[in-house]
Each structure stands twice: as structure tokens, then as C-alpha cells.
């Protein structure tokens, strides 16, 4: 190492030192100690007692609710994320049309819901989804549809949360729009000369060109869904009938309601592994991480 290289290394490390300290204290240490706690019984008041894999065994073999929350969360990942991404991508494609005037107006309209604080969002949607006189069911009744009980119905509570998530998908639209604007116009012109219709163009030009960005949004949405907690905590407290008890909510309840810190830590580690497996397999399946290695 030359003198200059040494100096640069020292300076570089000096500049990033806040991150190094933060990473060790607020990320690495918690992850490591969470692994330890996950093998203990710990109620905060008395010292943790080492119990080996008991928490994991209990979760997988003695806790039916664990499977319920896993199912609920998976439901949100499969249907919620897919719908959110499809709808926001479709809206973005329409918004990106060159003939359209007022793009900035529509972009603002679709973005505004993401600005509303979660608590306020929850108040708002409780009222929109009121079974008796809520806005959603009122509009449905104009078309002769007898709207469901939404948050009060075990069947419709999850779809209600999905609709809410789509309404708050403005971030994805902004990111999609930025990506769409980067697609070279020649590609569309070439496709048009070849006689491609609108759907051909979307399917054979837009989607392939947008693949990395779609992937980015899908992964962000999955991570967000796996962590989602505040809305169900505020609106339904996991009910009715545990139909909206999601993974992160159950984890929170175990930790801070039942003071089962060890149990919650085991859940945290399983969540970490689920997140990593989902993200990495999505990246791999789309050819990322191979060429760059």
C-alpha cells in the first residue's frame, strides 16, 4: 500500500465512522443479540433463561396462531403486492402517454395519499369502509351492490387493507414514471412500424425495459408488507377472528403485550430469513447478482 492509499483508507474510514458505529450498535449488535434472545425465555423482569430451540419448536408445532399470521401475511404479499404493482404500473403507463396533458396534476393526485400520517389514514379508512354509511359501500349501492362489512368481516378485512395499500401506492407510480421516461422512443416507433398494437407494445417493449424497476418496486412492496403493522394495530387490532393479525403485529403483541421477548425474537429471526429468501430468490430469478459477482 502506498502512502497515498493509506491516507485515503484512513480518511475514508474516518468519514464513514458514524455509520460503522451505528451499524455495530443499532444493527449488528441487535441482530446478534436477537439470535441469543430467541433461544431464551425472557420476560424483561427476570433474567433470560436459556431454553435452546424451544421457542422455534413452539412456534412451528404448538402455535396455531403462528400459521394464521403467516397465512395472512402471505396473502397480503401474494395478492396485495401483485395488485398494487399491476395497478400502479397500469396507471403509470397511462400517465406516461405523450398526448396526455396535465401529467403533473395527476401525478400529484396519486402521490398525495402517501403523505397522510398512518394514524390519520387509519381514521379515514375506518370511515370510508363503514359497513352502514361508509363512502365505499354507498358508492357500491348505486350499482345495486350490497357492500360487505370490510374491516368487520373476516373475509373482507384483508381485501380492505389491500385497497388501502393500493390507494397509498403513489411512491411506486413516481418510480415507474421515472423509469418509463427513460425508455428510448425509437423502441416504440420500431414496434409500431412492425404493426404492434398497444398491448404488444406494452408486453414486448415496456415490460422488458422496465424489468429492473418493476423488480425494485416489487421487492420494496414485499418488504413493506412483511413489516406492515401500524394499520392493523390501529384499525382492527388483528381482528375480526385474527383475520388481520399479520406477522409483525403478532410479533409486537408477543414482545410488548405478553412480554415474551424470547418468543418474539425467534419470530424476528424467522422474519429475517423469510425476507432474505424472498428478496434473494427474486433477484436471482431475474438474473441479478450473478453477472456482478
Amino acid at each position, binding site marked *: *500500500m502506498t502512502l497515498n492509499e493509506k491516507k*485515503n*483508507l484512513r480518511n*475514508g*474510514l474516518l*468519514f*464513514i465512522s*458514524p*455509520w460503522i458505529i451505528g451499524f455495530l450498535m443499532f*444493527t449488528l449488535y*441487535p*441482530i446478534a*443479540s*436477537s439470535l441469543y*434472545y430467541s433461544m431464551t425465555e425472557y420476560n*424483561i423482569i427476570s433474567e433470560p433463561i436459556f431454553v435452546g430451540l424451544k421457542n422455534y419448536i413452539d412456534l412451528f408445532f404448538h402455535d396455531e396462531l403462528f400459521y394464521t399470521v403467516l397465512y395472512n401475511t402471505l396473502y397480503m404479499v401474494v395478492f396485495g403486492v401483485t395488485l398494487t404493482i399491476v395497478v400502479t404500473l397500469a396507471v403509470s403507463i*397511462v400517465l406516461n402517454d405523450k398526448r*396526455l396533458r396535465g401529467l403533473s396534476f*395527476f401525478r400529484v*393526485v*396519486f*402521490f*398525495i*395519499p402517501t*403523505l*397522510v*400520517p*398512518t*394514524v*390519520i389514514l387509519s*381514521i*379515514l*379508512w375506518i*370511515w370510508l369502509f363503514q359497513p352502514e*354509511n*361508509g*363512502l365505499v359501500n*354507498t358508492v357500491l349501492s348505486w350499482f345495486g351492490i350490497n357492500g360487505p362489512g370490510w374491516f368487520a368481516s373476516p373475509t373482507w378485512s384483508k381485501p380492505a387493507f389491500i385497497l388501502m395499500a393500493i*390507494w397509498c401506492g403513489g411512491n411506486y407510480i*413516481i*418510480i415507474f414514471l421515472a*423509469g418509463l421516461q427513460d425508455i428510448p422512443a425509437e423502441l416504440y416507433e420500431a414496434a409500431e412500424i412492425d404493426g404492434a398494437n*398497444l398491448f404488444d407494445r406494452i408486453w414486448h417493449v415496456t415490460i422488458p425495459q422496465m424489468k429492473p424497476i418493476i423488480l425494485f418496486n416489487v421487492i420494496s412492496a414485499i*418488504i413493506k408488507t*412483511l413489516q406492515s*403493522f*401500524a394499520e392493523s*394495530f*390501529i384499525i382492527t387490532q388483528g381482528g375480526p377472528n385474527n383475520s388481520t393479525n399479520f*406477522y*409483525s403485529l403478532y410479533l*409486537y403483541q408477543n*414482545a*410488548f403485550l405478553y412480554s415474551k*421477548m424470547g418468543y418474539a425474537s425467534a419470530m*424476528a429471526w424467522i*422474519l*429475517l430469513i423469510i*425476507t*432474505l429468501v424472498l428478496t434473494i430468490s427474486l433477484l436471482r430469478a431475474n438474473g441479478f447478482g450473478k453477472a456482478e459477482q
Partner: protein
Amino acid sequence: MEAQIADSKKGKRKSLLALVCMYAVLIVLAAIYIVPFIWLISGSLKTSSELFANPPIWWPKVPQWKNYIDAINSFPFFLYLKNTLLIMGFNIIGVLLSNSLIAYGFSRIEWKGRDTIFIIVLITMMLPFQVVMVPLFLLFQKLGWIGSFLPMIVPSFFGNAFYIFLLRQFFVGRPNEISQSAKIDGANEFVIFYKIILPLAKPALTTVVIFTFLQSWNDFVGPLIFLTDNRLYTLSIGVQQIMSVNDPRWTLLMAIGVTMTIPVLIIFFVLQKYFIEGIAFSGIKG
């Protein structure tokens, strides 16, 4: 020839029709996005019986502006506002100080292992908060921080992966020559950082400040877990508390909802460019 003209006429008519359809769809969609806000505002001005009326009343007969005063008096609004702003102020300072330094170290200096460590930074973005939530709570408890603002403030002084990423991308894009010529003049890295790069980075720093503002204003999970003393509550958690009582006064809650949303909307409309660019940036360069 004639057939061609007819064809192109037909094509034009077809595309005009498509355009009209597109507008129709967009306007319906825009309505779906806007009407809930109107519902919130109208709800905040109703009397309780108007709010519960079935079929629903679209707009109150006499707008109950008093709801807003009652709402603010129904809980320690100004105390919670002060707490929220205090946490936000420290977060903005911490985020600006730490992330600009860190991003500089990851972009403007060449050192061995830099890009490997940067990948670790990116990986931490995937980490669900729930994974570190319990140990962090226990750590803060051992440190005696629970019952103070420290758990909400201190971590922001130690970097945030997303902001590091955002600022780094911006720093990378500045030409190398500006650093080189300053170095020839004898400036050290810190001087270059402070005197040259930071002033250039104002737009990116503004984006970071806006996101931090939004994050602190909206944060729910952090205060829920770490602020156990109700004198330390932020607005979000305070509102949730009055919501969770039996039979809450919904019109007042909606008035608080409007009150809490308006500042964010104002900031958004004034600084729209930075919002949109910051978010678009994260997806494109990712």
C-alpha cells in the same frame, strides 16, 4: 390513395377515441383518490349525528368549525406538537450531519474495500425493523433511555442507509476535477467536503430534510415502542391513544386528521420538485 386517406382518418378517429377513454379513466381514478380527502374534511365539520347518519350526508348543514377547537382541547395537542417538533429538529440535524459525511466517504475518496462495505449498507435497507425492535428496546432500557426522547433521536446521528445511498449517488455525479484542483491547492478532504461538495449538494440535502420531516411527523411504530411516558408522546401516538378509548369522538378525530395533514401538504406543494426527484431517483439508480 383514397383508401389510405380513409385509413389514416379512421386511425386518427380511433386514436382520438382512445385518448378520450384514457382521460375518462384517469378522471375517474383521480376522483377515487381525491374524494376520500373531501370525505375527511366534510366529516371533520359534521356534528356527531350527521357523521353517523344513514344514508350518509355529503356536506354538513352548518359546518362545525368548533370541532377544530374542541379537537385541540381534547388532548394535550400543543405538548405533543412540541415533542414531535423537538424530535424532528434533532433528527434533521443528525441526519444531515451524519449522512453527508458518510456519503462523502463512500463516494469522493477511493479506498480499499469501500464498495464491499457499501453493499453492506444497501443490504441493511432490506432489514425489517421488527428484527431489531426487541433487542433495541432492551438495549435502550439498559442504557436508561426508555422514558426519554433519546431512542428517537440518537440513532439518526449514525447514518441511515437510504439517505447514504441518495447522497452518495448525488456526490458520485459531481466532476472529479473540482476535488483535484482543490487538493493541488493544499485542501484536505474535510475542507473539500465542507467548502466544495456540501454547497453543491443543496438539492439532495433538501430532499433528505423533507423525507426526514415526513418520517418524524408520520412515525408511529418508533414512538409506540420507545415513548412509554405519555408526557413524551408525539402527535401520531397521542391521536392513537384518544382513538383507542371506548366510543371516541370521531368528528374531533377527523378534525385532528385534517390539522395533521395540512402541514405535510403545504410542504409538499412548496417543495414538490424535491419530493418527486428524490423518490424517482431511488428507483432508477437502484
